[in-house]
């Protein structure tokens, strides 16, 4: 007797839980060869709204943790990814059509990337912070602070390494985030959500929506309670990118602009992946009183 296929329908990841889309919609995801792979939830603007509320709620607690603790939490995510390495490898093979060897190297790089960013958590302040020389009797100190809720449109091509490379730098500094995954290749993102849910990342710090960046993006870009947006996911679509930048200007969001094409994610990242989503706090402290 042949065994029936278990045809999965995945859900969103919002506020530490896995709800269906508010709209009730889902869409078929194909593997790289065009065969049916699974159903994914099609996030609507209301899911994005709920995710922003969750991210805002989580911001105080997450940004208030010590940098050391955030690093530990990210290391823990890397550990669990390592445990689930076969599952991630399968997901990358399915989504990107890579060979098992290539997929394994992609997963390794993604895990290493996470560890690399985790290491930055308690070092970034020393690198970016300053004791500023001022003409007066003051200690003048500048330190980086997280900007708040960051919307991330994740890369469309690189479904795991690209995703980790845009999410990790945002949360390691204390921001919380609403991520819209690759539309055609959402399954590695779903697996990552399952990892985040079972690691020590508090609910609401990362909210993962599977769906179309072109339909959800404008709502996130215009949302007055989102502090910054990363447009990497609309790389190579300059008209849409411009439209999103205009919408984002309404509340002076920080914008990480869309590149003309997706970068090579295997290369070691620059610091601006983190500094683009930071504010600088400067304290004037009187001396000699």
């Amino acid at each position: 007797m042949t065994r029936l296929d278990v045809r999965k329908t995945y859900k969103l990841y919002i506020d530490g839980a896995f709800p269906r889309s508010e709209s009730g919609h889902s869409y078929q995801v194909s593997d790289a060869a065009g065969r049916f792979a699974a159903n994914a939830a099609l996030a609507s603007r209301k899911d994005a709204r709920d995710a922003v509320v969750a991210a805002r709620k989580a911001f105080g607690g997450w940004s208030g943790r010590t940098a050391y603790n955030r690093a530990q939490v990210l290391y823990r995510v890397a550990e669990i990814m390592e445990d689930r390495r076969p599952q991630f490898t399968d997901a990358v093979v399915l989504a990107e059509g890579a060979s098992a060897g290539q997929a394994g190297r992609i997963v390794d790089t993604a895990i290493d990337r996470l560890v690399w960013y985790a290491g930055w958590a308690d070092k970034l302040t020393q690198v970016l912070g300053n004791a500023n020389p001022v003409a007066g009797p003051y200690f003048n100190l500048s330190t980086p602070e997280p900007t708040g809720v960051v919307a991330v449109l994740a890369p469309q091509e690189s479904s795991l390494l690209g995703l980790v490379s845009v999410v990790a730098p945002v949360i390691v500094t204390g921001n919380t985030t609403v991520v819209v995954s690759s539309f055609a290749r959402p399954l590695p993102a779903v697996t990552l959500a399952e990892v985040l849910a079972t690691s020590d990342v508090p609910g609401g710090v990362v909210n993962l929506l599977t769906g179309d960046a072109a339909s959800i993006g404008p709502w996130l870009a215009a949302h007055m309670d989102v502090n910054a947006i990363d447009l990497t996911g609309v790389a190579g679509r300059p008209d849409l990118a411009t439209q999103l930048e205009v919408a984002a200007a309404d509340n002076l969001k920080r914008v990480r602009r869309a590149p003309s094409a997706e970068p090579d994610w295997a290369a070691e990242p620059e610091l601006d992946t983190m500094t683009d989503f930071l504010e600088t706090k400067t304290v004037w402290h009187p001396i000699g009183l």
Partner: protein
Amino acid sequence: MTATSPTRAADLDGVVSDVTRSDATLRRFLHGLPGVDQVGAEARAAGLGTRSIKTTAKAFALDLAIRMVDLTTLEGQDTPGKVRALAAKAMRPDPADPTCPSTAAVCVYPDMVADVKQVLGDSGVHIAAVATAFPSGRAAMDIKLADTRDAVEAGADEIDMVIDRGAFLAGRYLQVFEEIAAVRAACGDAHLKVIFETGELQTYDNVRRASWLAMLAGAHFIKTSTGKVQPAATLPVTLVMLEAVRDFRETTGQMVGVKPAGGIRTAKDAIKYLVVVNEVAGSDWLDPDWFRFGASTLLNDLLMQRTKMTTGRYSGPDYFTLD
């Protein structure tokens, strides 16, 4: 209402004096009211809560809900500065949008009434004061009456009194009736809202009895809760109270308002209540004179939803005051 004789407005006084002749007659009347079908009431409230209110209907509902808000602060830490800021917000909830209506009233403790009055002036926003040893209602009668008179003298247009839940639950209905009637007399021209604290009344049957008791005693409004006890206002409790005011008007011709208070925090919840009002009591009650929300955080969510409808983009709490 089957339990009452077919009376008309003209002889309401006659009915009242008849029913309240003694504790026994009042008890017979209240316990003669038909029982509330708990499962049915909860199912109906849940069913009405699923109605989808969108576009122009939603815009209407949001503005109506803002006009129905009794903007409330009842904290030990209230200062004159805080209640003044709240009063200013009640007049102009959204300073960025002149088309935004003002709220119905500001609800404070009696000692804050004078401060609120100074800010509100003749803006048309009412001043509600909680009185009669709020929130427990445990004080001697003369203290409760003095509390009420103080608030009215300070300029309160509306008095929110609490009933003595201990007396009600012990079955001393006549005592509760007489207290409400005495406070009503002490109110003078001010409107009287009677708070049941439905979270402490245990059953829907008790809510219905308390509703009739308060209406017979002359309440202008019946109100669910103080906001100090959980559960506060719920949709089924409000539904039972709306049925009571509807039946009371059918029987006596007198209209009484309803005010759910406490626990209503989102615009979505507020719209559910408005649907229930319309479907249970009727559209006559869709007016700030006959239905109110006792709330504080609700207003900001209503304003955010309103801004979303006018600007087409989601708003955030950064753009509204922290109360």
